[in-house]
């Protein structure tokens, strides 16, 4: 059976039609919905929220190898619930999906895993923190976490230490995604130091760098008309960071969070953050923009963001583009770019 179809079905309640990118715009039907003015408790909110339909633990890292080259790394664990009911063992409605990738200037490695919830093959526990699927793992306290994943042709084994606090996006963690009000709970831990080994077909590489963890959960994060998004996480050399996304639909919707070096944040409303495509590349038979002009005039940011490797296509059940980028312009630095919905 085509794995694409399985995953597509993952995001589709059997009754309703797919709406929005990957069906994320379909109605919430019985699942819990985010509410304004949330309060978060850590570390328990690091764990899973099974009442919500979709959730992820999304780690990206910009690395430099001992050979002086730039590398990028991704480790993602998605959780989705088929129904808002409970179930144990094989009848658990929770399904898990893992994506892992390594990007070099000349190559991009991707692999995917799928797992049933309820039987122990995948899951997340908050205390002690452990997120796993098959042999992939992201576990341990912030001060000393390990990160591992492997595919048929690549693998990595890393350690992380957090050097700053968690950061809430949007309105104290309530992140609105469209003018219609669809929202999610969204926080990040963007201050990770990361080091370890990449196992690649060309040989092993020792790398160090910075990592950024995104945490998000919701039940209807998109509006029905929204076909995809472009998400930027940029780490500037002056220690500050920018998270900005542009949701494409009948009318574009954008949000951004400026994260200062001390961990304080400034949230920007729709329209403040702008991203304009400059260069389009042919990736996996599609036209995908791989160089962007990103501006946030309210913060004095006017940069050009360009992909380290334009062919960073995630050839998974629900395909998208995700890869490391270089930043030049008013600020310099590195970051990660994710683009979805380009058919």
């Amino acid at each position, binding site marked *: 059976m085509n794995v694409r179809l399985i995953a597509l079905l993952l995001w589709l309640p059997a009754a309703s039609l797919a709406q929005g990118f990957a069906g994320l715009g379909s109605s919430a039907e019985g699942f819990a919905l985010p509410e304004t003015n949330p309060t978060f408790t850590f570390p328990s909110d690091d764990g899973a929220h099974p009442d919500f339909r979709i959730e992820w633990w999304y780690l990206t890292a910009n690395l430099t190898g001992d050979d002086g080259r730039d590398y990028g790394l991704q480790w993602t664990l998605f959780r989705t619930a088929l129904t808002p009911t409970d179930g144990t063992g*094989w009848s*658990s409605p929770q399904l898990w999906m893992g994506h892992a990738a390594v990007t070099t200037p000349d190559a991009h490695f991707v692999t995917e895993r799928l797992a049933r919830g309820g039987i122990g093959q995948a899951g997340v526990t908050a205390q002690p923190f452990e997120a796993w699927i098959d042999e992939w793992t992201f576990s341990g306290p912030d001060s000393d976490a390990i990160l591992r994943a492997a595919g*048929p042709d690549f693998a990595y084994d890393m350690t992380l230490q957090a050097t700053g606090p968690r950061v809430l996006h949007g309105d104290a963690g309530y992140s609105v995604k469209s003018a219609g009000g669809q929202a999610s709970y969204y926080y990040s831990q963007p201050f990770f130091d990361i080091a370890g080994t990449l196992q690649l077909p060309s040989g092993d590489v020792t790398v160090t760098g910075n990592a950024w963890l995104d945490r998000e959960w919701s039940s209807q994060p998109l509006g029905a008309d929204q076909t995809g998004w472009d998400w930027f996480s940029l780490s500037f050399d002056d220690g500050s960071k920018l998270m900005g996304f542009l949701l494409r639909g009948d009318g574009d919707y954008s949000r951004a969070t400026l994260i200062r070096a001390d961990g304080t944040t400034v949230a920007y409303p729709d329209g403040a953050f702008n991203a304009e495509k400059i260069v389009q590349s042919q990736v996996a038979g599609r036209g995908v923009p791989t160089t962007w002009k990103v501006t946030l005039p309210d913060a004095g940011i006017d940069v050009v963001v360009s992909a380290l490797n334009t062919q960073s296509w995630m050839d998974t059940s629900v395909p998208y583009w995700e890869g490391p980028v270089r930043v030049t312009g008013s600020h310099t630095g590195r970051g990660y770019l994710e683009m979805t919905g380009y058919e």
Partner: protein
Amino acid sequence: MIAVTFAALFGHWWRNPLQLFTLLAGLALATALWSGVQAINAEARASYDAAAATLGEGQFDRLVRSDGQPIAQDTYIALRRAGWLVSPVIEGRVADARLIGLDPLSAPGGLTPVGLRNIGGLQDFIVTSGRIFAAPDVALDGAVSDPAIAPGTAIADMGTVQKLLDRPNELDALIVGPQQPLGQTSLDQIAPQLSRQVAQGGSDIGQLTDSFHLNLTAFGLLSFAVGIFIVHGAIGLAFEQRRATVRTLRALGVPLRLLVCLIGGELLGLALIAGAIGVGLGYLIAVFLLPDVAATLRGLYGAEVTGTLQLRPIWWATGMAIAVGGTGVAASTALWKLSRMPLLTGAQPRALAVIAGRGVKVQAAVSAGLLCIAFVLALTANGVVTGFVLLGALLIGAALGLPIVLRAVLGFAANCSHGVVSSWFWADTRQQLPGLSLALMALLLAMAANVGVSTMVSSFRLTFVAFLDQRLASELYVTAQSPEQAASLVDFVTPRVDVVLPIMSAQVKIAGRATDVFGARNHATYRDNWTFLTAGKTPWKDVHANVAILINEQLARGADLTVGDVVNVGEQPLTIAGIYGDYGNPIGQAIIAESLFQKLFPDVRPLRFGLRLPRKEVDELVKDLQSEVGFPTSSVINQAGIKAHSLAIFDRTFTVTTALNVLTLSVAGFAILMSLLTLTAMRVPQLAPAWAMGLTRAQLGRLELIRTVMLAVLTGAIALPLGLALAWVLLVVVNVAAFGWRLPMYLFPWDYAQLGVLAILAAGLAALWPALRLARTPPADLLKVFSNER
């Protein structure tokens, strides 16, 4: 005008219902046999596809417990968390169906119910209702029927099946995905109780059973060809008899094109009707034979074929197409002749003979040409396609040449004969020959096919029996469930038997081909019983000196190896000391010495053993194995039992062939009957003078009977060598090209004699009714001949 013309043309059938019946029946029977065979083949292939899609059997490696017990679900999780991409499977029986539970997320591609795509219900499958997908022949409450699922099988989610079978947290096997990640922990460290079963790549069920289906298809084609002969005859006759009508119509002003179109259209309509009847009959034939076919395939190859027949477009559409096409081919010459016919040609009663006379030279040339082609191909053919072309050329060439040979024989006999009656008899036979020649050709083909196939089958059986004797030399065969049980077994039996012969094998690639390598213990059993196709001077001695290897015929042919060549098993070079026959095995096989085998494959522990002991002690040992060692009866098989079982399966295989054989012969007999009946009406003017000169009607009837029987005997005499040639081609060219092994040809004169008697009986019966009719012809009819000179 069209309506009137059509009525005039079609009126012929009203006046001669027998001819219409011949045409329809011949075509219907031919189509029936063809579509019946195709229906069986299509059903079988659909079952193989479903089995492969449902179960991926033979595609992927599996992990199972060495002791055959269920695997704990925790083991599955532990393996996954150690980097093993495996997928769980559980199996059980519910309400006489095989119920399989799997996990759609982890199952390797192609291993999940097709219905999952249509229903769009991962939710239904996993969470809400625990949906079950079942094959159409399975009756389970609430199951969704899906024809793409292997017969007798139902599929549901792992959780659902565990609940239905009341086996919580148990699995039966783990399927190993084709791609595994880096850094996997070794199996020994995570789950030492599991062992890996390699996928049997070489035993794709479709390939194994190809021989069987080829057999069936060849028969279908043959039957169809025979039927087309009948149709050709009937159409030809109808054209001849409508010549007068056609002449009148054309003289009245009907355009030729309209006539040709109308006749063509009429034939098309008849072909469609006959085709539809034929497809219906074919369905019945298939329904009747399918359970036997299914049982044969299950016993012989382990292939599951459903016993219920489904209407698949492939066989009824091709059946109709072939009926229409065949009629078209049969009618084309007649239509062509019609369009070339001069307007005022008379309707001559001797038209057939006249036509035949003109065409004889062409026919002789074509026949000679085809036989030459057959001769050349016999020397050079080495593929399945060329083999079948050779067969076709041989059969058609012989069939076309038959009337010419018969004419020559009859002419010779006429010259030798003395006396008025016998001279008249031979001359009359020669004159009748063209009318009967098509029926006799059909009889020739049917008899030759019978001889050829029965020779092949009997040679096969004889060789097979000898082969079994060679391979199953031990009196007793025992299978242990684990190495520990094997060790205790060996300890127990060693003092009580002459020798214990372990059966151990591993799969490697030799000369690039998948091969099962067996290790043989140094014992006289092998030296005494093994026969080689070709061998060096001392094959077994060389093998046990660890320098030589024995290979089977398939490997030798496939990799173009002979005795004396050197091949590598792993890193070890070995000289080929002998090549042996290995019938029915699609992949290569090789034998090396036990000591060398243990050196090359130290992990393989034999679980099966052959025990040599005096025959009278066998039963006692079997009893003791059960009571003292606790061996279940299923693990102990005695040689006589295996042999009987194998032979029974073998005989079943050819039940179907035999049935088709009989049917084909019946069709040929029917052809003769119809020809004789249709000719009877035209014979009156030829018989009237003989009657007038003193031969009684009874004598005439008797002569008719003798004539037909004699022609059948002559045909049989030609059919015998033709059939033997057919058998030779099948054994030496087609079988070798298709399967890589060759059978020696044996002759069975008793079988041929039986067939001859049967054929003569059929011809005699066919001739009986026309002869009786002739004997009862009212004298007035005979007299009328003289009053209307035609």
